């Protein structure tokens, strides 16, 4: 038995070079092999995971640390509108806000992306031209994912064709919950292929998967299938993103990188409305996976109302006073 005294040496020793082909090729050969692999992952103790998240939630983030956290959180926001009533006008208005979140303060950073339904991706692309802000589109029969494979793939191609450079797909929770893991895997692989150069975010909808064990298995399944990001929720199901589920998913991307050398991003979405919530998530990132993930390339917030609270808190730090909701734009 070798005693590894420096985690760095363990990772360097067992981690294949990026791009050399995952060491897990054989686990996706059959449903049985995939099942055995996913069920062989270390379990998650619910009480322990929730306790850890709660403890991290008590970190006291003040002054310079808070200012840094607020600006970082703003730069990680996927500013989202996913309503049936969405219109080109609404998307353009959102894009304007994405570029310049605080009209009174040009030092406020821009957000990471604007997230819309696929048919409006073209409008967003046009409105965000030259800004460097990404356009994310939800696809694959979002939010339920209840459609045939052909329809889902067509949905993806349509969104990519409209110019979206990030695709947020939903997994087939029905297939996952009934244990048809390989089916879920193959679907993600097919969607990834249909994405082309676009980044793929895989939405696990952890609120419907219910257990943390399932969240960890689904995370690994998505990563094995080539996800660039794993995302908690659609925002249409309650509970959406929670701190413990984000913790479990971060542990999964950390372990996945240690095993394969490939880094995968994490996006909690839905239910994160306040600066306090966002800062708690950043603390969990910081203390679970470290600074490597503390950038919009590897961590995003899927949110619509969070941005305004971040801006109000930002104004508060700058002026020393709380202002009202009329000091930030409605969209």
């Amino acid at each position, binding site marked *: 038995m070798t005693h590894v005294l420096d985690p760095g040496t363990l990772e360097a020793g067992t981690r294949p070079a990026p791009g050399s082909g995952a060491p897990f090729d054989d686990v996706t050969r059959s449903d049985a092999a995939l099942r055995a692999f996913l069920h062989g992952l270390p379990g998650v*103790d619910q009480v322990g*995971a929730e306790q850890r998240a709660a403890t991290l939630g008590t970190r006291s983030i003040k002054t310079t640390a808070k200012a840094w956290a607020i600006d970082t959180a703003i730069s990680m926001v996927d500013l989202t509108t996913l309503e049936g009533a969405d219109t080109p006008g609404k998307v353009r208005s959102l894009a304007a806000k994405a570029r310049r979140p605080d009209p009174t303060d040009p030092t406020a950073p821009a957000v990471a992306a604007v997230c819309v339904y696929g048919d409006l991706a073209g409008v967003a692309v046009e409105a965000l031209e030259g800004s460097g802000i990404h356009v994310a589109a939800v696809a694959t029969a979002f939010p339920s994912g209840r459609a045939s494979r052909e329809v889902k793939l067509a949905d993806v191609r349509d969104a990519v064709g409209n110019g979206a450079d990030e695709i947020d797909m939903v997994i087939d929770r029905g297939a996952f919950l009934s244990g048809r893991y390989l089916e879920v895997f193959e679907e993600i692989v097919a969607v990834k292929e249909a994405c082309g150069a676009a980044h793929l975010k895989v939405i696990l909808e952890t609120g419907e998967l219910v257990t943390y064990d399932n969240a960890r298995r689904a995370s690994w399944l998505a990563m094995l299938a080539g996800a660039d990001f794993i995302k908690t929720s659609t925002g249409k199901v309650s509970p959406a993103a929670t701190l413990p589920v984000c913790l479990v998913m971060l542990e999964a991307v950390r372990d996945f990188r240690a095993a394969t050398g490939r880094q995968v991003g994490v996006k909690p979405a839905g239910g994160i409305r306040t600066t306090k919530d966002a800062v708690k998530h950043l603390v969990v990132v910081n203390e679970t996976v470290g600074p490597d993930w503390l950038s919009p390339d590897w961590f995003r917030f899927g949110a619509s109302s969070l941005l305004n609270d971040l801006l109000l808190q930002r104004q508060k730090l700058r002026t020393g006073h709380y202002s009202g909701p009329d000091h930030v734009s409605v969209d």
Partner: protein
Amino acid sequence: MSQLFEYAPAPESRSIVDVAPSYGLFVDGEFVDGSGEPMKTVNPATEEVLSEIAVGTEADVDRAVRAARRASTRVWGPMRPADRGKYLFRIARILQERAREFAVLESLDNGKPIRESRDVDVPLAAAHFFYHAGWADKLGYAGLGPDPRPHGVAGQVIPWNFPLLMLAWKVAPALATGNTVVLKPAETTPLSALLFAEVCRQADLPPGVVNIVTGAGDTGRAVVEHPDVDKVAFTGSTEVGRSIARAVAGTRKVLTLELGGKAANIVFDDAPIDQAVEGIVRGIFFNQGHVCCAGSRLLVQESVHDEVIASLQRRIGTLRVGDPLDKNTDIGAINSAEQLARIRELSDIGEAEGAHRWQPACELPDRGFWFPPTVFTDVSPAHRIARDEVFGPVLSVLTFRTPDEAVAKANNTTYGLSAGIWTEKGSRILAIADRLRAGVVWANTFNQFDPTSPFGGYKQSGYGREGGRHGLAAYLKESS
């Protein structure tokens, strides 16, 4: 790893609590001078002198015991049990109201991080008073006969690791059962007990029911050996416990002892690894490892040893060591220079015996008493660091191959206070827990305390239980 996210210091305000330049003894409801040479109590994080503390001599202890006896026979003993309960409820509520004050004072005097005194010590201390307040008028239903009676005067000596919490563990059941108390807090951490004396006055507790006599070993001995003390309760080192047992032997006094431990924290290969790592950290680094039930021996199954150790080291790298009053500090100061010397000595012995010492890169403050979180791998059951209680942030890692071996190694200690089991398999938890000679066995968690749960040890970890229905028995005589 470059640190992007630096947490700015978030210090709790010291001004919430007044530390007097000097304190007397609390006897018969009054603060009085002690006859001994006063001593100083320091902040272990800075070595700054906090206050001067009176020292009780035999004569002072005698005064306190006589006050307690008077209160016992005239007021507290005859009082309606429901009224005793009201006093306890009142104390519990005041503890909650003044929680922040107590938390700051405890961290100043003890060196423990404010997040622990704020989130663990003070809330649990209040919970013990609430819990025992509920028992005060229901003692007939505790399974100790229809009308159990108090012993009378309880002499109590408590340690420095949880000054307020250990006070609550001792005082709350004693009062609920109708006993009066003479308590000697530890010499390095008397301040929260003296603030508690103020709480007793605020709650209008009758004079003499609680008496607090500060001082060192001689004062403690005077309390234990006083002929008019009926019941002795001690929490502290096995060595002192042994001398108390000798002193009490042959008298009519009743004795309970909560002594040292060298708990095994057993991690099986099917354990939830991330939570097990959290449990290992909580087991040994909680309160700087100054915990008698600390999980100081990690028994990890060989097949997952490397994975667990790598995860543990990564996790320890995130622990923040430093100013106890910073709300983001995870590990505070070692309580005293003496204790620091002992931790250093035992760690050096560990290395000399061939175990491998690992410590994370962490900066320690220049002043004060500090020791970084430490892990020893390659430890054998024959090593002293696997046998002696270090009482500091030092973990010894041993391995095992089968459940039988785990049990044999876990029980191979002169102590028997606590143990931990980490496995996803429920049947294994029950099977192993049954075979462990330990007073408390935690499953997939560690260092969890609750007033309803009895706590105590086997072998050299002492005898008697505190907390729960079992804890009441130590303070009551069965009615005949």
